[in-house]
Each structure stands twice: as C-alpha cells, then as structure tokens.
C-alpha cells in the first residue's frame, strides 16, 4: 500500500466517527429528489460528496491532526495526494450508490434512462465534483477549514447552480462532449493538486507544527 493510500484510509477513519451525520444529508437528498431521478446523482454529488470530501480538513482543524501528520513517517506530498485519493473514493462511492438508485427510481416511475443519459449525468456530476474539490482543497490547505469552510463549500455549488441556470443546460451532449467533460474534470483535479502543493508551505501553523521544514523523501 502506498503512503497516499494510507492517508486516504486515515481520512476514512478520521470521518468514521461522524458517519451518522454524514449519512443524514444523502438520505434527505434522496427523499427530496425521489421524483427527480435525473438530478439525484448531481444532487448527491454536489450537496453531499463535495462536502464530505472536505470533512477530514474540518476534523484535522478540530483535533490538530496536522501535528499527527508531522509525526507520522509521511511526506507532505503523500499527505496531499492521499486527501485527493480520499475525495476520489467519495465520488466513486456516491456515484456507485446514486446511479443504481436513480435507475431504480426512474424504472419505478416509468422514466426512460438510456445509457447515454446515465453517462451524461455521471460525467457532468464528475465535472461538478472535480470543480468543487479543485476549489475547496487549496483553500482548506492554505487557510484552514475553520477560516474558509463555509465559503469553500458554498462557492462551487453556487458556481455550478449559476452555470446550470444561465447556460440553460437542456442539451444532449454527444459522446465526445461527455468524454471532454470527464477529461476536463480530471484536468481540474490535477491542476488543483499542483496549486495545493504550491500553497502548502504557506499553510497556517498550529502551535506544534509552525513553520515546518520540508521533509525529504
């Protein structure tokens, strides 16, 4: 197992004690969107997954996990990549549960869902998720969750909602567009990793970690 995978696993354990409150929001979203299966996956991704992805940062601020990270045999790069790996896992789990749920609801309500529609929904959701994480993570690392948590979590949702309403997204993209959207999401995340790595040396310091010297590998 790589160090980044270990960090992703540590993130799972970090948020595990809060699983009840984290599961409440998706259940509410599913209840509200039970009659709109076509927006279930984007709703779950934007309202739940993108917030959950940032949860380890919140717990880290609260419990001084930056000190734990500084003590563990772990490079900062592995740590940051691990947080992104955790985010990818959250997206995969949410899409993996939300998509079949949307299909079941659509079938139950006699709404026709083609494979193309599913691909469109998932790729758009992926792009929205990638945008959310790409904005949130550098802000969390640079300023700390406590200072920018609300802004960082609501800004991406606002941007996506504005884009959806202003651009009147009632089109049926072809396969190329879907692939481009998916690739665009991946590119956003990679750019975000680069930004997060660049701002990491300027992160706020706790009493125990200020200001850290870079560890070599």
């Amino acid at each position: 197992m790589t160090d980044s995978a270990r960090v992703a696993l540590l993130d799972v354990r970090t948020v595990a004690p809060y699983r009840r409150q984290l599961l409440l929001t998706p259940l509410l979203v599913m209840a509200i969107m039970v009659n709109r299966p076509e927006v279930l996956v984007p709703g779950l991704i934007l309202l739940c997954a993108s917030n959950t992805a940032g949860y380890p940062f919140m717990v880290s601020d609260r419990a001084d996990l930056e000190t734990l990270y500084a003590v563990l045999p772990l490079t900062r790069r592995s740590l940051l990549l691990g947080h992104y790996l955790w985010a990818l896992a959250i997206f995969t789990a949410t899409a993996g549960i939300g998509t079949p749920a949307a299909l079941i609801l659509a079938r139950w309500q006699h709404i026709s869902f083609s494979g193309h529609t599913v691909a469109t929904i998932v790729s758009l959701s992926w792009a929205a998720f990638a945008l959310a994480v790409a904005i949130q993570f550098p802000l969390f690392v640079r300023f700390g969750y406590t200072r920018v948590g609300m802004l960082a979590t609501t800004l991406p949702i606002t941007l996506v909602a504005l884009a959806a309403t202003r651009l009147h997204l009632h089109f049926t993209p072809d396969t190329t567009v879907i692939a481009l959207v998916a690739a665009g999401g991946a590119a956003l995340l990679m750019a975000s990793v680069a930004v997060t790595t660049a701002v990491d040396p300027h992160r706020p310091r706790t009493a125990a970690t200020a200001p850290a010297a870079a560890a070599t590998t």
Partner: protein
Amino acid sequence: MDPEHAFAFRGVHATVGRFRLRDVSFSLPQGYVMGFVGANGAGKTTSIRCLLGMQRIDRGEIEVLGHRVPTPVALRQDVGVVLDHSYLVGEWRLTEVERAVEPFYDRWDTARYHDLLADFGLDPRARVKDLSRGMAVKLMITIALSHRARLLVFDEPTSGLDPVARDELSAILGDFLTDERHSILFSTHITSDLERIGDYLTLVHDGRIVATGTKDEVLDGYRIVRGGPDDFADVVGVPLIGLRRTGVAAEALVATEDAGLLGDRVVIERPSLEEIAVHIGSPAPGRARAKEYS
C-alpha cells in the same frame, strides 16, 4: 555526521515570532537519557520542534540518528514523539487509534500496544476525548513505544501524570533503555523525574543553552551560596544567578569555580537540580555563563 550521537545541535539559531533560539549546541550519545530543563518559554519546545523538523532553523545544523535535519521521512519510523497535548481525533476509541496509525509504521507491535494500554490502566474502548490529560499522555507514550522507535522525544510528558504514573513511566523507560541503541530526550520542569532517570542534562534559558553535560557534571558545576541580606552587595566579577534577597537572608547560584571567591562569609552547598533550574529560570539579576562539559 556522527552515528554515535542520538542527536546533536550545532550552533542552531531559530526564530518563532519574537522568540529566538540563539547558538544552541548540545548533543546526546546513543543509549542515554537527556533531561532538557528550563522554565516555560525558555526554548524547550522550540528546540524539540527544530529536532523533529517541525520548525525551520535560521542557522546551524541538527543531526538525528546520523541524518541531518530535515531528515529522511523514513527516519520518523525510529523517532517516537510525545508532545504536551493530544493530536488524535477525540471521537476515536483507543482501538481505532491503533488502526489509524499502525499502517504507517513498519515495526508496529500490536501486542505491545495492548500490553501498554493494560499497564497504564487505559480501556481500549475509551474515547480519546474522554481521557484525562494524564491518560492522554499515557496514550501518546503507548503509541511512541509501540512502533519500536530508537529515539524517544518527550515534551513535558509527566506534567499531567500523578506520582504513581510517573513511577510507572520511569520503569517503562528503564525497560526501553535496556537496548543500548535506544535514547531519550526528556523535557520537563519536574526535575525529580530527571534525578531518577537522567544521564545527561541540558539547561536552557531565554533561548540559550546555559549548561549541558552529564548529570553529575552539571550538578557539580554550580553551588548555592547563602548569606545575610548584605553579604552579596559588594560582590564584583562573580555572576550571581537568580539572586534572591529577603529581609534576613540572601541566596544565589554561582559557578563552582567562582564560589571560593566569595570568601568564608557565605555558606556554600551543592544544589539540587530543582534549585539550579529555579535560579537559572529566575528573572532576578545575574546571568548564567554557558557551560559545556565534554
């Protein structure tokens, strides 16, 4: 690089806000315990953070287990850290603490973790947030000892422990030191702990090292001088460290070689470590000269 040293500071300068470490030099041979003594704000925690690579240094160099800081990340496998506060998720149970940190350590010893929890009277089902400060320190010590570190770094570990727990800790550290490659840096203001387990002592005050050497060298390096309230009024050329005057008496710490210069009008005694720490940490006039014993 000196592989015989557990760690070595050489001319280290560091700045944290308005506080500065200045020309800090001291070292510990492998296989020994060093007590790191100083008042609050003297520079103990800053020095330890420099040692752990958590604090950037302005000048000088620090070496840990034969590697210059910043050390390779893999070296953290060999360094156990107990700080003066918990840095774990409060909602974790102690079993979950192990599951969280164990994947990062190559030599994690599950049996030892659970044995130490039992020895310290910690319930594996307890949550971190429900532990008292002393119990939290015991947990951090348990983690540090469970990954088979070669160097343990303790920042005020005993400040939250009751005397029985401090005694237990001394016994556990004694076991740890049966391996001659194991070493401990132990910062504390409870000097009685160091009287028992310290081999070396380093005294720090106002960001400077005041004395460093074996325990006997440091203790032999000072004398407590006591006299009447006016007995030190005309003393010239002898630094009186932490001079205290009352209406009927005066007391100060002096370098052993200076004690004879005060003549027979004062009483000269060998100080305890606590007396040395108190006088050196005192804001009263009289500065200590740095003493380094080879």
